């Protein structure tokens, strides 16, 4: 993608190399870099540096670019006094659990549909794909009622992590991209493993999964990021404050926390996602464009 687009785009190289072209190019480039930094990086700086200011300085209607006095302790205060540490760990538990269960269920489903090919497998796949077209918000009430009183066994999952984990598994998009990847693994590879006496589970563990690392990475990143960012669903199914993730807790506590501690909490809620983004930038952008162009 980047290599191809450097060849020829809207503006011809000859036009770009003219004196006015070069001047204009520099001007627009500098303007864009400054504009993007101001629009997308500066707000994050303002948040992180605001957390370092004293409460009095934050209330000043004439703010300064750098904190006049540094108060890094608002980060530790937010973590311990307000108990954001606990909410952070709650989020971690929800995200890691959702990731593991999602991988387990979705890999098994995709493997069955791609390689084991049960009777009516295509009907099942079609029904799964149809759920992609259902808007999440229209499913809010029915999913809530299901989680509050599971069909047949009548268990109430409200205030348990399962209320987050189980609905997260029913992810047709993950199953779809996993299946599409598994489909490309040559049948001969599986066949030779089978001739060596490996059963379907062993084939999955020793042949299919090691070959699927790229797609597993994409699914994992989206699983963790999705649960970490979520607000509305945990707000509904985890009304018990002690179990809430940091997103829900921040919104609930926003009115009662000192402004600098609230900002510190917002930074803490964002840092894991920003770190994931910096490490897996390629995967995220690749998954994004693949999902939208071909999905």
């Amino acid at each position, binding site marked *: *993608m*980047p290599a*191809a*687009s450097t060849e*020829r*785009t*809207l*503006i*011809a190289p000859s036009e770009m190399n003219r004196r006015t072209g070069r001047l204009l*190019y520099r001007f*627009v*480039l500098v303007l*864009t*870099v400054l504009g*993007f930094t101001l629009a*997308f990086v500066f*707000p*994050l700086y303002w*948040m992180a540096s*605001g957390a370092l200011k004293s409460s009095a300085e934050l*209330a*000043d*209607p*004439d*703010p300064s670019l750098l904190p006049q006095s540094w108060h890094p302790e608002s980060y530790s205060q937010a973590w311990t006094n307000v108990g954001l540490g606990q909410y952070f760990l709650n989020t971690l538990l929800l995200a890691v659990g959702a990731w593991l269960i999602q991988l387990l269920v979705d890999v098994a489903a995709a493997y069955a549909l791609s390689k084991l090919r049960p009777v009516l497998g295509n009907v099942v796949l079609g029904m799964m794909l149809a759920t992609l*077209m*259902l*808007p999440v*918000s*229209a*499913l*809010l*009430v*029915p999913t*809530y009622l299901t989680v509050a009183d599971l069909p047949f066994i009548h268990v109430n999952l409200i205030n348990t992590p399962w209320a987050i984990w189980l609905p997260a598994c029913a992810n047709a998009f993950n199953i779809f991209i996993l299946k599409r990847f598994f489909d490309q693994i040559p049948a001969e590879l599986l066949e030779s493993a089978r001739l060596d006496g490996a059963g379907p589970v062993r084939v999955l563990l020793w042949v299919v999964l090691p070959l699927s690392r790229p797609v597993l990475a994409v699914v994992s990143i989206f699983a963790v*990021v999705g649960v*970490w*960012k979520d*607000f*509305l669903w945990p707000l509904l199914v985890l009304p018990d404050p002690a179990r809430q993730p940091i*997103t829900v807790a*921040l*919104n609930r506590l*926003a009115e009662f926390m000192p*402004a600098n501690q*609230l900002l510190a909490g*917002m930074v803490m*809620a*964002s840092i894991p*996602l*920003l770190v*994931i*983004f910096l490490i897996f*930038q390629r995967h*995220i*952008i690749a998954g*994004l*464009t693949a999902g*939208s*162009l071909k999905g």
Partner: protein
Amino acid sequence: MGWENYQRLFDDPLFATAWTNTGYFTLLALVFGFAAPFAVAVVLNEFRHARSYLRMTVYLPVMLPPIVTMLLWRWFYDPGPGLFNNVLEVFHLPAQQWLESEHLAMISLVLVATWANMGTTTLIYLAALGSIPGELYEAAELDGASVRQRLRHVTIPQMRFILMITLLLQVIGTMQVFVEPFVLTGGGPDDATVTVLLLLYRYAFVYNDFGMASAMSTLLFVVLGLFAALYLRLTRSKG
């Protein structure tokens, strides 16, 4: 007895308000969020420098938890020590009631939503722009087409399909707007930012009226289903 829920829904004066507000939000979000990322992507695609920096920064807000974005912007919009009114003051412009004014509140919500989401659309457009064959531009250039003519007769026709797709996805996405009004305005001022999903939330989880909430869910499902069907037809016919 099911129809009774619909009857009560239609009798609620907020019902019409919520749909009108949601339509208004969707329309405004398209004005800002549909054209802006396209223009940005066309410009970014010309750059030979700072490419990865620009791609990374425009996507940064997408990675933030939406609740953080909303709390951050609520602080920016604060009529007292808020950043936006500070900036206006520097330029000697009058301070604004960003979230408290009935006229401005919805626009303020759309601004946040655009800031938070335009990274995704921009990167999708950039990928599509990169796959336009360079020969098309060369041929147009040989025919004496100016930059503006090339944009109109090569870029936009080549992008038509992806533009249609993102338009539909954006309508489907923005009609489900919730966090913005929930955190920033609570539906106010004077119900100017009550959206369909916010009202649905109130029915179910504030008034515990799951009958009305289900009726609302069904209606939302039907409306969004129409757009989803259109999307499916488009993607199917294109293979």
